[in-house]
């Protein structure tokens, strides 16, 4: 009941004209940037960070939430009409959506995807409302050793669950931790890795690292391998669904979130696994198995619904535990830190207006997105024809704006370029980018909690594992370290059915 009251208060915050405006701007920008080929949700959120610098936190995060969900809505348009998914979560949408578009059913594919996102987002956000306060209440007493355990969990999760090579994931994490070390030591004020530079003494701003790795690194990598003949987008009319289509898809829309939400909340790589599992489930349950691979509408509806629900699940662990499980959550965590707000169990107590306003605006954003996407899909689809030189020049341009806006320093632009070149190298040699970003964001905090915990226990290592919570989390860490064996089973199954 308590959370229902808080949610109603949240709607009071979200429905003020200014916040409604920020939500609308957020979903518009998010959809537009999500539709643009080559830009996934993480880069969209990183590029749009500077837009929020002038806003107060509540408005900024309401806009952010709109960008996040909008980018997911827009991303499926790209997969269906271009058949070139930019991110792993959109791969499944292309498998069935693109054949549908090719056989003249693009409008139905877009509608099934849009309603799927809406249903998944709605159900996922309702689960967020129900679960998040409970999780936060359970975790509210946690101390330094518990926080450290959570961060270790995040480190291990991003390095060993994501990507194909653990060594490369670990290398990426260590590079991130190193960048996080630059600057004054928080406890003694000693300069570390600053090489006497005054500007480096402030440390490297997290936003610059995120924009450098996600935006500059990606733009330079694409520039090195630019496809000279861009894929042709399939023209499409206004999305609509016939009665027969709705009869086939409504169960898929409802099943998707059941798979997507739990996978979003745990550090298992975001939407990639749940969209795939949802696809397999729909294929198994469908009465039209022969259509799969040639444009089965259930294969669009279920996975898209699962993807949106997993985004809501991501927010549960991000808001209540401060644990980012996806790249977008990592960038949002960085944004919270910009405002001096630390997501975690205390967030719901300390910033109820912000949190509940944010959650309420997710519902508002979802309605706005459905209203925007169904009638305007043909307009959004026009964005697919943007000339690639303009697209990537624009990414560099806005990345530069963002990095400069952080502190008004030209040196930040040079650091941004250097980090972008690191990002380019990482893409060339298959080092995943996410562990580095998580390392920069959580590294300094983890060090502080480690030193605090050991100060309390007077240097005894047992001080790190003296609570049930931390022991539980370390048990999960051990489980994750044995995950490759389990993963092999999943991958084998995936290869059989794909």
């Amino acid at each position, binding site marked *: 009941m308590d959370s229902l009251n808080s949610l109603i208060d949240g709607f009071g915050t979200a429905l003020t004209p200014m916040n409604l405006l920020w939500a609308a701007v957020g979903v518009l920008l998010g959809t537009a940037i999500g539709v643009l*080929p*080559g830009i996934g949700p993480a880069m969209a959120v990183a590029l749009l960070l*500077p837009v929020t*610098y*002038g806003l107060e936190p509540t408005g900024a995060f309401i806009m952010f939430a709109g960008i996040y969900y909008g980018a997911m809505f827009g991303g499926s348009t*790209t997969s269906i009409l*271009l058949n070139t998914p*930019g991110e792993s979560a959109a*791969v499944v949408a292309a498998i069935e959506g693109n054949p549908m578009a090719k056989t003249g059913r693009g409008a139905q594919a877009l509608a099934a995807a849009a309603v799927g996102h809406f249903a998944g987002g709605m159900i996922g956000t309702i689960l967020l409302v129900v679960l998040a306060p409970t999780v936060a209440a359970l975790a509210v007493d946690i101390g330094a050793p518990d926080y450290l355990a959570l961060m270790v969990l995040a480190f291990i999760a991003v390095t060993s669950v994501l990507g194909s*090579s653990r*060594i*490369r994931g*670990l*290398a990426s994490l*260590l590079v991130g*931790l190193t960048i996080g*070390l630059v600057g004054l030591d928080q*406890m*003694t004020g*000693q300069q*570390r890795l600053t090489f006497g530079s005054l500007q480096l003494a402030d440390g490297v701003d997290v936003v610059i690292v995120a924009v450098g790795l996600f935006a*500059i690194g*990606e733009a330079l*990598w*694409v*520039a*090195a*391998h*630019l*496809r*000279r003949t*861009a894929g042709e987008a399939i023209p499409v009319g206004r999305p609509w669904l016939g009665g027969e289509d709705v009869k086939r898809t409504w169960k898929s829309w409802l099943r998707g979130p059941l798979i997507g939400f739990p996978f979003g909340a745990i550090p298992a790589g975001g939407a990639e696994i749940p969209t795939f599992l949802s696809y397999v489930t729909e294929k198994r349950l469908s009465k039209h198995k022969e259509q799969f691979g040639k444009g089965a509408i259930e294969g669009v509806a279920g996975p898209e619904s699962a993807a949106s629900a997993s985004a809501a699940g991501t927010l549960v662990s991000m808001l209540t535990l401060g644990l980012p499980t996806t790249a977008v959550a990592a960038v949002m965590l960085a944004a919270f830190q910009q405002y001096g707000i630390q997501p975690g169990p205390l967030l719901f107590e300390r910033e109820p207006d912000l949190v509940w306003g944010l959650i309420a605006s997710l519902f508002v954003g979802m309605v706005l997105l459905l209203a925007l996407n169904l009638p305007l899909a043909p307009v959004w689809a026009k964005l697919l024809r943007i*000339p*690639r*030189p303009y*697209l*990537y*020049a*624009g990414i*560099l*341009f*806005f990345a*530069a*704006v963002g990095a*400069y*806006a952080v502190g*008004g320093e*030209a040196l930040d632009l040079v650091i941004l*370029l250097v980090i972008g070149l690191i990002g380019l190298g990482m*893409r*060339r*040699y*298959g*080092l995943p980018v996410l562990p580095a970003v998580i390392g920069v964001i959580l590294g300094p905090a983890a060090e502080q909690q*480690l*030193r605090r915990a*050991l*100060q309390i226990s007077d*240097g005894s290592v047992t001080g790190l594992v003296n609570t049930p919570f931390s022991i539980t989390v370390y048990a999960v860490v051990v489980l994750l370290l044995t995950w490759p064996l389990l993963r092999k089973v999943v991958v084998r199954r995936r290869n059989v059915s*794909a």
Partner: protein
Amino acid sequence: MSTESESTESENTTSVSTPAGSTSSGGTTSVSTASVSTRKGNLAAWWRERSELGVGVLLFVLGALVLTDALTLDADLAGRGPVGPATVPLVVGCGLLVVAVLLSVDVLRGGRGEAEAGEDVDLTEPADWRTVLLLAGVFLAFAVLIGPVGFPVAGALLFWGAAYALGSRHFHRDPLIAAALSLLTYVVFDKLLGVPLPGGPLMGVI
């Protein structure tokens, strides 16, 4: 999923066209009878195929740097609490050295990082580093120019230069779009969103 692995495979095969890839550790031992020039060619191909070893070297250097920095911290101040400012850097530095060695071993055993695929990425073509260098140059020029000439001018040059480097050759349309985008961004950020950007002499005139 399948397209990703196919395209990386094809990139690998383009760079492994010479038979040098067959030797796993020695590299030069099997070509003792061959002439010096082919040995050189084989050696170059051997290195090209294992260019990822460079990543290991960089990680090693970075680890050494972190360790050196940690060990030269002022020891007198480190006494506060059982864990001083040098502890975590020491752990990270050692971690980097270990990972550098493990990664190099993995590469020598034939492991390769998969180059990232994407919507506009064509991995079947060899990398076009000229474009990347041009873009980096344009970006550095922006960093140098933003102070003296202000954001609207420097930003327009950045967009125009980047579009040119990426292959756009519309000599009337490109600068117009660049100028409009830069000016619009300046107005929106500086005036509407409250994010200050330097106007430069041009804005002083207007």
